[in-house]
């Protein structure tokens, strides 16, 4: 079990404070979704947890060890990170791109050991891209490419999986499919943290929701406790209705509130 946490985590980019002393703990086996308005610091939080930005104060901790002090390969084996958007610079095959996820294990794409090959095949199957293995990743549609990149992160088989807006470029069917993959990853014992703007899907798939606003955590609890009219108004600046559809929360945003900045 790998416990990921943020302790008094403060990050500035340039001279601009982006995260101000955040305390969070993520539980293995649970899927946590991070929501919040644009510029709330969600991506910076994820990058700090992944050890990609150095905190100004406090620390991101993995089993009580500061992530920033771990060696590159050690950190990479423990934390798989999928950035937002994500480009593929060269027309590598889908299989080669996914195999990059094995680099932290010292496995090179052209000489994968059986375990690595298995992990790659499993990851490709998880995102439903069997048959695409030899296609150049640059020739795929945006949604297909997003799934290839997710498969790359899955192939590392790290105990922690951090994904930044994994469903933003996907059609509804593949959104559900990717969220199923993330849920299965968590149910397999992984600590999964995903950023999303889809509040209804967050309500449906997340075990926990973190609401961020202006560099701080406004709420961290179950979807029912976080996705409330008050939070929608205070953090997103929108008037919203929270419906209960046979036990499932549906968030319907209605009007921007005049006071919202």
């Amino acid at each position, binding site marked *: 079990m790998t416990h990921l946490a943020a302790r008094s985590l403060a990050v500035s980019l340039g001279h601009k404070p982006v995260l101000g002393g955040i305390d969070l703990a993520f539980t293995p086996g649970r899927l946590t979704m991070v929501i919040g308005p644009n510029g709330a610091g969600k991506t910076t939080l994820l990058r700090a947890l992944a050890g990609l930005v150095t905190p100004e104060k406090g620390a991101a901790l993995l089993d009580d060890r500061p992530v920033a002090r771990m060696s590159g390969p050690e950190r*990479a084996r423990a934390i798989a990170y999928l950035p937002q958007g994500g480009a593929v610079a060269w027309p590598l095959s889908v299989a080669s*791109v996914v195999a990059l996820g094995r680099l932290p294990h010292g496995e090179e*794409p052209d000489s994968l050991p059986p375990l690595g090959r298995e992990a790659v095949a499993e990851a490709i199957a998880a995102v439903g891209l069997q048959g695409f293995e030899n296609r150049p990743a640059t020739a795929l549609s945006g949604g297909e490419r997003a799934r290839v990149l997710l498969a790359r992160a899955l192939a*590392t088989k790290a105990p922690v999986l951090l994904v930044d807006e994994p469903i933003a470029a996907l059609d509804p069917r593949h959104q559900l499919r990717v969220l199923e993959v993330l849920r299965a990853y968590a149910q397999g014992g992984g600590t999964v943290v995903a950023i999303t703007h889809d509040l209804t899907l967050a309500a449906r798939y997340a075990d926990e929701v973190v609401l961020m606003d202006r560099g701080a955590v406004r709420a961290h609890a179950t979807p029912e406790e976080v996705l409330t009219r008050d939070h929608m108004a205070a953090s997103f600046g929108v008037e919203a209705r929270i419906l209960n559809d046979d036990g499932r929360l549906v968030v319907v945003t209605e009007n921007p509130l005049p006071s919202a900045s």
Partner: protein
Amino acid sequence: MHFLRRPLIPGLSILLAFLAVASLAIGPAPISPALVAKALVSDQGSASIVVREIRLPRTLLALMIGWGFGLTGAALQGLLRNPLADTTVFGAPQAAAFGAVCVLYSGLVGALSWALPVAAIAGALVSIALVVLVAGRNTTIVVLVLTGLAVGSLAGAATSLAVSLSPNPFAVTEIVFWLLGSLEDRSGVHVMLVLPFIAVASALLLAAASPLRALTLGEDTAKSLGVNVQRLRLMIVLAAAIGTGASVAVVGSIGFVGLVSPHLVRPFVGYDPARTLVPSGLAGAALLLAADCAVRLIPTGAEVKIGVLTAMLGVPFFLWVIFRRKAELAETPA
């Protein structure tokens, strides 16, 4: 394409062996390949002198320097995720030449001193670091090429200034001819002067293979895969400067080999930056060796300068790459 991958390195090696023999045989006094072999291992009178003292150093220099250029081009294209990256485009040869000219001009050292490659390396380092710093991250190809153009022009102007202020007309002629790039009249001392630098640059660049692969998915992903991106950048910039600087110090300005070589091997090995490195180095060696044979075969009074030939072939190739990839280059960040 997989069947094409395997024979590439052996194929290029055979081509290199063939070109090396040709390079030892071709010249004002043609020597048959059989005599070349004999002259290398036993005393064959004047043939041995020509082959060992005149043509062997030139052949070895073309092999080493071509290899260095090819490898550097592939690594820089991988680092910047850009098929137009090369030391030539970054103005490094001009900057290295300026460094070397400063040393030559000062008259403090002879053309065979270590100070010459060191000054050239310093010049190349400044230019490459400047381009990578100003344009290397999250920028477009246009900015990259423009920065390289600016740095190269500045170095070229500074060199011209140094040359025009030179009090000695003979030194001017020597510097100008040396600037054009040539492997003519080089000796074993030149080979020994450039060898350690090419060796160090090669070691640094080959060690970058796996990190370059991770960089295909961008800096953040590469970092998350355990790559120290800053160190990688430093390693490649340093290696590119060392290889280019030492080469320019010994043979003058020879450009575009590093730009062309990776493109020549990609149809065979694919786009994986790690897989491109060694074949691109071998292709660079073959290109420079072939160019050096060609300048000896072109029937002109004085030998055509190899730097002139590579530029005349390289620039149209550069334009062709831009033309072919115009659409994607317009929107691809470097």
